[in-house]
């Protein structure tokens, strides 16, 4: 599934849109689905991890809209090559990803298929010269 999405997300490094998001859902067993939200990040750019303090840059955050047919199981897991270092500009340890990071959420279906699950991701991206202001993108996945 992962390969599938990446192969579809053809993009060029671009100051206008340095981060592209792709969402997909994959059935596991026992009415459980895995929602995978992938950030494809242009060369030289990075986005921050979900797991940072309030000070300094905005951590990535993902919210799923409540849906009576779906239970959200646990927290959003993130998979990527995590970088971490102390940043004197902010006085904190920053955690961030280059190239690609995946945010994975397991959900359980308690209604009938298909179900559309809505979410949004808030994030900001930077390179050595500039940062994009924090912004929000909506996404949806269809469990089917």
């Amino acid at each position, binding site marked *: 599934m992962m390969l*599938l999405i990446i192969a579809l997300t053809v993009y060029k490094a671009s100051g206008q849109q340095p981060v592209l998001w792709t969402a*997909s859902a994959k059935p596991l067993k026992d009415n459980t689905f895995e929602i995978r939200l992938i950030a494809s990040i242009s060369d030289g750019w990075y986005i921050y991890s979900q797991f940072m303090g309030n000070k300094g840059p905005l951590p990535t955050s993902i919210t799923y809209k409540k849906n009576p047919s779906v239970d959200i199981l646990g927290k959003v897991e993130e998979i990527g090559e995590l970088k971490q270092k102390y940043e004197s500009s902010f006085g904190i340890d920053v955690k961030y990803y280059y190239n690609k990071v995946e945010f994975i959420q397991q959900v359980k279906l308690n209604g009938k298929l298909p179900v559309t699950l809505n979410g949004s991701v808030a994030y900001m991206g930077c390179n050595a010269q500039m940062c994009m202001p924090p912004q929000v993108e909506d996404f949806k996945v269809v469990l089917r």
Partner: protein
Amino acid sequence: MKKYSSLKKQLLVITGLWICSIPIYAQRSIKIGDKAPEISVKHWLKGEPIKNFENGKVYVVEFWATWCKPCIELMPHLGELARQYKDKVQVIGINILDRTPKDKIASFVREMGDKIDYTVGLDDGTMSENWFISSGSTGIPTSFIVDQQGKIAWYGNSGLDVMLAKVLNGETSYDLTEKTKPGRPGIMRYLMMPQSEEINLASEKLYEFIEKKDYDKALAYYDALCKDSAAVAAGVVDVYFEALINIDQKKSLSFYKNLIQNEDRWQYWVTWIVVNKEGLSKEFYLHAKKLLEPTLLDKSWLGQPLLREALPEVYFRLGEKDKAIDTIQDWIDKLKQLEGGEYMLKLAEGRLKRYKDSKMH
């Protein structure tokens, strides 16, 4: 932040439908050679307050935020420029798009001490829109040079030193043919975003009504939302549409048309609902086709696999069986080459079989 142009308002009234849910993003745009927008600051955090641009003086208006490392790194250099051109140039740092509380921003500026050696102000919300977004800027730090006549001489992320020297020497020639760049909805979306908890609740409520087939209640609930908060209503447009299409095809068609015309962020998802709904009038699918055909050329679109199935389905529903088969076959071929595509492949092959088995010619 709830802005509607009167023209759009009129158009919506003419079509007999009021969509409260479509905010109109960044209408204005500015370009090099234009009169600089106003300085509009909530609080001055350092230096002498600047009310307006004096004739004969050059200004550097620098946009920054506490979350921006490159901005913070640039600050000492801006101080150097301010000292170098002391009598000719006024440097103004404007904090924008920062959710950090005011007192924290103030203490940040204080702690930076001599590293910020120029005037600093806090945007009141209008400068981020009238300068940053209206100029089509996408990131910070972004510097604007305002010339001796109060016009924008230049703006950008790099090359400030060179351009400032040119402006001071009177060497600039404005290219007035430069096209204006539109503002970015994504950024506005951040500014306008209501607490997502409110959207969660609204969405949950609407889904509850839909599950019970209480469509009228869903519509009434949405209408009330529109009056209370257009921004929350804008977050649940798609769910509202699911209710609407079940009871009023005519109204949902004009709603759908308006979504597409306004490039609403839900237009593709509403299209997915349309495509998978039986028994709609042909017009729905014609609009869907017009939207989807060019979209599929843009490979960057989020959630694209669904659209790969949506377009063939639209062709099929319009009776264009050959095109439906071609496009779904193309998608199947792509899926076959990809590891992990089995599940999607099964769904796509199901559609292909249905198209081939149909008696349509």
